[in-house]
C-alpha cells in the first residue's frame, strides 16, 4: 500500500514512473513473480496429473520401465541442482548486501551447476537415443509385455524433463543477463529486484526437479 503521498518523491534512477516508491515496486515485482510461479505450478501440474492417472492405470508397466532410467545419474543431478539453489540463494543474499564480487562469483557458480545439470541431462537423452527409447521415433522395447505403456511413460519422461530442461535453459539466459548487469554494477542494496525474482524462478525450477526425480527414477527400484 502506498504510504507516502506521491506528489514529490526523490526519483532514484531505478524507480519506474508509475510506482510511488521503491518498496511498492519491489513488492509488485515479487508478487508478480509469485503469480507467474502459480501458472508454472499449474503448467507442470497438468503433466503430473497425466502421470498420476497413467501410473494409476498401469502401475507394473511404469515400475518395470522406470528401471531403464539411470537412477544414479538422476540422484547426482538432483544434488547438482540443490547446490545451484544454494549458490543462487547466496547470490540473492550478496545482492541484498551489496557485495558485488560475491554476487558475481555466486552467479557464476550457479551457472556452472546449471550447465552441469543440462550436461548430464543431454548425456541421458543421448543414451536413450542410442537405446532407441525415444517414443514415436523407432521406439524399441525388449519386454513386449508393456510395449505401449512403456511408450507412454517415456513420453511423460521426455515431456516433463524436456519442459524442465527448457526452463533451465531460460534460467541460464536470465542468469547470464544478471551476470552482465552485476559486472556493470547495476545492482545496489536499494535495487536488486531482478536478482530476487530470478532467484525465486530458479528455486521453483529446482522444486519441480525435486518432485520429478522420485516420481520418474525411483518407482521401479524395489522390484528386483
Amino acid at each position: 500500500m502506498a504510504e507516502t503521498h506521491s506528489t514529490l518523491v526523490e526519483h532514484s534512477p531505478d524507480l519506474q514512473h508509475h510506482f510511488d516508491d521503491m518498496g511498492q515496486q519491489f513488492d509488485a515485482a515479487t508478487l508478480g513473480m509469485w503469480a507467474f510461479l502459480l501458472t508454472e505450478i499449474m503448467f507442470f501440474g497438468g503433466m503430473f496429473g497425466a502421470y498420476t492417472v497413467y501410473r494409476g492405470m498401469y502401475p507394473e508397466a511404469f515400475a518395470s520401465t522406470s528401471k531403464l532410467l539411470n537412477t544414479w545419474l538422476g540422484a547426482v543431478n538432483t544434488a547438482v541442482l540443490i547446490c545451484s539453489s544454494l549458490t543462487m540463494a547466496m547470490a540473492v543474499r550478496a545482492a541484498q548486501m551489496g557485495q558485488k564480487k560475491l554476487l558475481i562469483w555466486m552467479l557464476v557458480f550457479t551457472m556452472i551447476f546449471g550447465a552441469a545439470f543440462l550436461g548430464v541431462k543431454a548425456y541421458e537423452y543421448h543414451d536413450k537415443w542410442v537405446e532407441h527409447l525415444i517414443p514415436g521415433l523407432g521406439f524399441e522395447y525388449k519386454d513386449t509385455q508393456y510395449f505401449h505403456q512403456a511408450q507412454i511413460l517415456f513420453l511423460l519422461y521426455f515431456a516433463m524433463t524436456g519442459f524442465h530442461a527448457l526452463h533451465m535453459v531460460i534460467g541460464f539466459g536470465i542468469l547470464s543477463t544478471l551476470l552482465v548487469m552485476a559486472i556493470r554494477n547495476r545492482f545496489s542494496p536499494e535495487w536488486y529486484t531482478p536478482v530476487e525474482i530470478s532467484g525465486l524462478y530458479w528455486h521453483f525450477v529446482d522444486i519441480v526437479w525435486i518432485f520429478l526425480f522420485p516420481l520418474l527414477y525411483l518407482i521401479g527400484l524395489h522390484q528386483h
Partner: protein
Amino acid sequence: MTHHISPVRDYVLVWLALVVLTFLTTYVAFFDMGQFNIVVAITIAVVKMSLVIWIFMGVRYTSRLTKLFVVAGFFWFLILIVMTGQDYVSRNWLARGHMW
C-alpha cells in the same frame, strides 16, 4: 524497505538437509514397501520443497499475501489431481457392485 537478510549458516544447513534427504529417498526406494513406497517418496519430496520455499525463497519473511499465493498454488494443483482421480478411482465401483 530493509529486507531481512538471513545468515549464511541457514542456507548451508538447508543445503545439507536437502542433500541428505536426496540420499535418503534414493536409499529408501530400494526396499519394497508396496503402496508405502510412493507415500514415503512424496513425503520426502514435500519436505524438501517446503525447505526450499521457506528458507531459500525466503517466504518465512514475506507478507501473508505471498504465503497465501503459495498455498493457493498447491491447493489448485490438488483440485486437478483429486477431481480427475476421483473419476478413475470410482470408475468401476458400480461394476463390482460395492463402494470399495
